[in-house]
């Protein structure tokens, strides 16, 4: 495959698509599939055949279109009309009314000028809902692999690293470390063997951003990883993906095969000296494996337990070799940065947090689904304009970001800009992008207990503060929730939280008390209402003996 071949392939595919008068895009992501989008596809095909339109109208399965709560979704191209809650009857109507008599199906049409769509800015998700994830040609037709071609044929590795650094891109896994700096460190380490690893172990409950990207646009990740491989000098990549995402695994397997067949992965990519392969590693349901050192252990086929850092994986990672580890969304940003330039990317968002962020909006909110917004947008805009606010009759109480490592942001801080620094200033974190909205019916002590229950189960048991501390924090919260705790227990809870936070080995333990601390900070009254005056001193936690993991 040469650069010319790639262009030819893109043109061929564009011409093929232009032959169709209409293209019916149905959402084939996990959410819509479970609402019955496969039946919708069959009905669309059947209705088209009946109207003799099968040759001129194409039915295409795409990645997530965003509005998951109103699925299954169908988009009619080239008009761009979007239909919600499409069942078999509506599918037939779309063919018979929209395509044949040219009158849109009013009842199911979505107003795309609604803020849900208008306020969004799509970079990572630009191809989701636009291409068939299972066809590499469609990805190539929308400038896919053009960035890789340019990098391999025109740029020096150091230039690639510099371009990424100048873009200001920061790790989208949640910690927010500068991606360019990380690439620079791995590039500078002297070693014959290096690895590029993609962290697709999206373990935070309530987060499905990475899943949607992997299902809707898998080639973008492969391209981003290959560019990273070229920049840091690695020849082998691994994608570590959760076993809970069977569709994503299937699509990635297919994508790797297609890319290898066309020579976009493998030896001498674009007739250069650059070789790069990607293998898939399937997780097995351990939250801690999202931590980088634990993830590396898991790829090596061992128990996913973290180890102290330094040495960081960029020096000693997979099998002791320098390893570049980035999140799915980080790799998804690479190809557009190379294609459109770092200046373009750096102009989006805020000076310190550039680009966009994908959020999975869920919970007590009208428009649930996947959104991508420029950094620095206010939380109020996300919740009330894009999300449409809480359901009727209830009031917004808090937005939870960052999953079990994050915190709850109360209504008083709704105007906080969504960027790395501002979110941590209100006691939460950017996290990987889960955003759960809670309304007046949610009890915050219960929420804190829920997350602590999660961390207690998921603690790997290697270090004592996390293994024992989470059990005791959970026990204390249980006592408080049951109304058995006294005013002595609250300071104890805080002390224990700080201890676990400061002394745990890895990110899981260090951030596990965050939901408790943040709810204590903003909703302390809910805790205090449940407390009693101490009659006599009872040592706390005695009714919940520590259990070993």
């Amino acid at each position, binding site marked *: 495959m040469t650069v010319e071949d790639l262009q030819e392939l893109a043109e061929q595919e564009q011409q093929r698509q232009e032959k169709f008068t209409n293209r019916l895009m149905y959402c084939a992501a*996990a*959410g819509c*599939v*479970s*609402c019955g989008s496969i039946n919708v596809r069959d009905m669309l095909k059947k209705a088209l055949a009946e109207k003799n339109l099968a040759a001129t109208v194409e039915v295409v399965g795409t990645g997530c279109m965003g*509005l*998951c*709560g109103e*699925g299954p979704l169908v988009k009619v191209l080239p008009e761009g009309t979007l239909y919600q809650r499409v069942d078999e009857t509506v599918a037939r109507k779309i063919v018979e009314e929209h395509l044949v008599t040219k009158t849109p199906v009013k009842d199911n049409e979505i107003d795309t000028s609604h803020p849900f769509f208008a306020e969004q800015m799509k970079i990572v998700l630009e191809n989701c809902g636009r291409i068939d994830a299972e066809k590499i040609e469609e990805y190539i037709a929308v400038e896919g692999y053009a960035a890789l071609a340019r990098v391999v044929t025109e740029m020096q590795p150091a230039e690639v690293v510099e371009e990424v650094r100048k873009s200001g891109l920061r790790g989208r896994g949640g910690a927010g470390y500068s991606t360019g700096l990380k690439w620079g460190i791995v590039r500078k380490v002297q070693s014959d063997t290096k690895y590029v690893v993609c962290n697709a172990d*999206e*373990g*935070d*409950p*309530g*987060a*499905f951003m990475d*899943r949607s990207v992997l299902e809707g646009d898998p080639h973008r990740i492969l391209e981003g990883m290959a560019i990273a491989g070229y920049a840091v000098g690695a020849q082998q990549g691994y994608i570590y993906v959760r*076993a*809970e*995402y069977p569709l994503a695994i299937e699509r990635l397997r297919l994508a790797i095969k297609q890319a290898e067949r066309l020579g976009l992965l493998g030896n001498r990519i674009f007739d250069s000296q650059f070789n790069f392969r990607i293998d898939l*590693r*399937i*997780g*097995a*349901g*351990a*939250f801690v494996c999202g931590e980088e050192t634990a993830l590396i252990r*898991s*790829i*090596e*086929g*061992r*128990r*996913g337990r973290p180890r102290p850092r330094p040495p960081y994986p960029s020096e000693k990672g997979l099998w002791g070799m320098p390893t570049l580890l980035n999140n799915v969304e980080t790799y998804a940003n690479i190809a557009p940065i190379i294609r459109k330039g770092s200046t373009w990317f750096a102009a989006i968002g805020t000076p310190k947090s550039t680009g966009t962020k994908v959020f*999975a909006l*869920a*919970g*007590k909110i009208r428009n*649930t*689904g*996947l959104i991508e917004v420029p950094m620095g947008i206010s939380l109020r805009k996300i919740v009330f304009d894009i999300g449409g606010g809480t359901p009727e009759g209830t009031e917004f109480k808090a937005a*939870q970001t960052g*999953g079990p490592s994050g915190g709850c942001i109360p209504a008083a801080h709704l105007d906080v800009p969504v960027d790395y620094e501002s979110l941590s200033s209100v006691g939460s974190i950017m996290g990987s992008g*889960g955003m*759960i*909205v*809670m309304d007046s019916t*949610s009890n915050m002590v219960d929420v804190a207990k*829920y*997350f602590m229950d*999660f961390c207690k189960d*998921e603690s*790997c048991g290697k270090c004592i503060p996390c293994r024992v501390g989470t059990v005791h924090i959970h026990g204390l919260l249980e006592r408080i929730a049951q109304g058995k705790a006294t005013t002595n227990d609250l300071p104890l809870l805080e002390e224990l939280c700080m201890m676990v936070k400061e002394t745990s080995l890895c990110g899981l333990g260090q951030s596990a008390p965050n939901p408790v601390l943040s709810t204590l900070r903003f909703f302390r009254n809910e805790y205090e209402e449940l407390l009693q005056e101490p009659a006599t001193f009872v040592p706390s936690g005695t009714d919940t003996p520590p259990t070993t993991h």
Partner: protein
Amino acid sequence: MPPTTTTPKPHPSGDNRFKLLDRAITKHQSRGDALIEVLHAAQGIFGYLENDLLVYIARALKLPLSRVYGVATFYHFFTLKPKGKHTFVLCTGTACYVKGANKIQHAAEECCKVKFGQTTPDDKISLVQARCVGSCGIAPVAVLDDKVAGKLTPEGAVERLMAWKNEKDEVTA
């Protein structure tokens, strides 16, 4: 050594399932670091990881049995006990939790008379909890025999569980 809770049954020679497992092991060149992949394959073929199966894998990959057992018990995805005919996986992720997954949990436990993580005595239904299945847009969600059911209500869950419960035993099952 793992605790020998089940009486080891001799594997009939020529069990085709072992042929499939051997193929998966050969695909990874019997490398020890492919242990998790091999365990996935084994669970896919046999349904669960019996002690004998772990011994078999340890020998094939030339790993200490303690390593194989350690990995199999570390990850939630692997199960060392057989599952029921049907599995009801309830998502307890944050979005489902906020939307009332615990009500479904109580209803399901009441209906099946077992707790989550257990299988009914007649081996028909296993109740399983998942942390997040990533379909938060249609919360609360359960996965019934690999089919995702969204916007589930306690009544809806009970209805489906009852359908499984009242299913007639098939000889071929």
